[in-house]
């Protein structure tokens, strides 16, 4: 495990810029199934983590600031939501870009199976992102 971690870290540090030709061979660790799943689903679970944090903060706000002080309560709601949405957009964009870059590297290195799995998982992420809107279209 320790060995794998070490390899992974080295690999992350040695990821070449996407504009440069890719010549290095990636470690087995970074190409394992779990690594691909974690990488490709990152946009989704990062959003979930940010959503849960924002929800918890809103709940704390509602708990500690009574409705008799509604203006303050509302200002804090809005601040939490703005920061939460900004963090979510940044996290989604960065994690998607990172995953796409990695998948591109795998493809160029001839790791087609890993690249295909990564792509499928990203399609799943995009579909899950759209799912609430599709659901709303049918149930509203």
């Amino acid at each position: 495990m320790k060995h794998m971690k070490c390899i992974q870290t080295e690999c992350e540090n040695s990821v070449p810029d996407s504009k440069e030709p890719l010549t290095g061979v990636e470690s087995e660790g970074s190409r394992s199934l779990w690594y691909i799943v974690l990488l490709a689903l990152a946009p989704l679970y990062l959003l979930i983590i940010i959503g849960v944090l924002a929800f918890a903060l809103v709940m704390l706000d509602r708990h500690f600031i009574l409705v008799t002080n509604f203006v303050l309560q509302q200002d804090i709601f809005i601040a939490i939501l703005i920061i939460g949405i900004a963090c979510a957009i940044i996290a989604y964009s960065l994690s998607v870009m990172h995953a796409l870059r990695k998948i591109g590297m795998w493809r160029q290195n001839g790791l087609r199976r890993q690249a295909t799995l990564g792509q499928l998982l990203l399609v799943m992420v995009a579909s899950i992102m759209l799912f609430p809107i599709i659901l709303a279209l049918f149930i509203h």
Partner: protein
Amino acid sequence: MVRAPVSQRIITGFLILSGILAFFYIIASLLLAIIITNRPPKPVTTTPASFGLNYRDVSFLSRDDHLLLRGWLIPGILPDGRLTVERTIIQIHGAENNRAQVLDIDAAIVKQGIAVLAFDTRGSGESAPAPKGGGYFEQRDVLGAVDFLRSGPMSYPDLGRPKAIGGWGISVGGDALIYAAAQEPAIKAIVVDSAYATMAEYMEPAFGDFSLFIPGARYSEIMLYGLDYTYIRPVDVMARIAPRPIFLIQGSADTYIRPSNMTELAAAAKAAPDAHVQTWLVPDANHIQAFQVAEGTYIDRLVNFFNTELHVNGNTL
């Protein structure tokens, strides 16, 4: 530079599109929930004095959550000119309005010897800012008004306390009144004009072209305000008001809260064995326009209802 394969470019486009749509949906839903629940209060620009009426500014707290609410207590005028608060009705305005919404009708009522307590519900007029609950949170305001009339400081000490309390609610004010009357036996008779039977029926017309965002706004409201509209169903508590009399009014041309809502509410109220329910479908009246379309008749029927049903010591005055 190596160009990404077509599949990669399609996936990238799909991810960007889904991200944009999802974030847009979330932001729009949150904004709608915040806007709907926090519409800016309509200022109170008139007073009962403009109708030549005697009145006092009053303030009291909502029951349970203790929000400061402001209103007017307008005593009834007896035929000999004396003032009275023996029979007092609590008047609850509709959404995006304030205590002055039907001041002209209040004036006609007090001239028939019935006092009116007209107040701004939470987040409206001059009352404390607070999230609006489409009548659900506002039931606490109505209950606060009942507490004020029964045990609050007396605005007219020489007139004593009301001996019979009634209620008249308009639109979501009617729903607040239904909820309040269902749990407060001190409210002896109610008039409900243009109220919804379930809030779900009210959501679609309220959202108009934005109805796609109803589910998103629903979850946003649950998170931000603890308000889930699917559980707001005044129709479910109607039967608890019996045997106290209920008068339901609705415009036949109401496009906002359809006339079927009154039918549902009446049927639910009549489910109680000792129910006492009257209904009046006002022809050609749109939402909360019954008192404009049938002005004279509206006042007559309202006053007759309270004259007949609001008893003091077992007798009508």
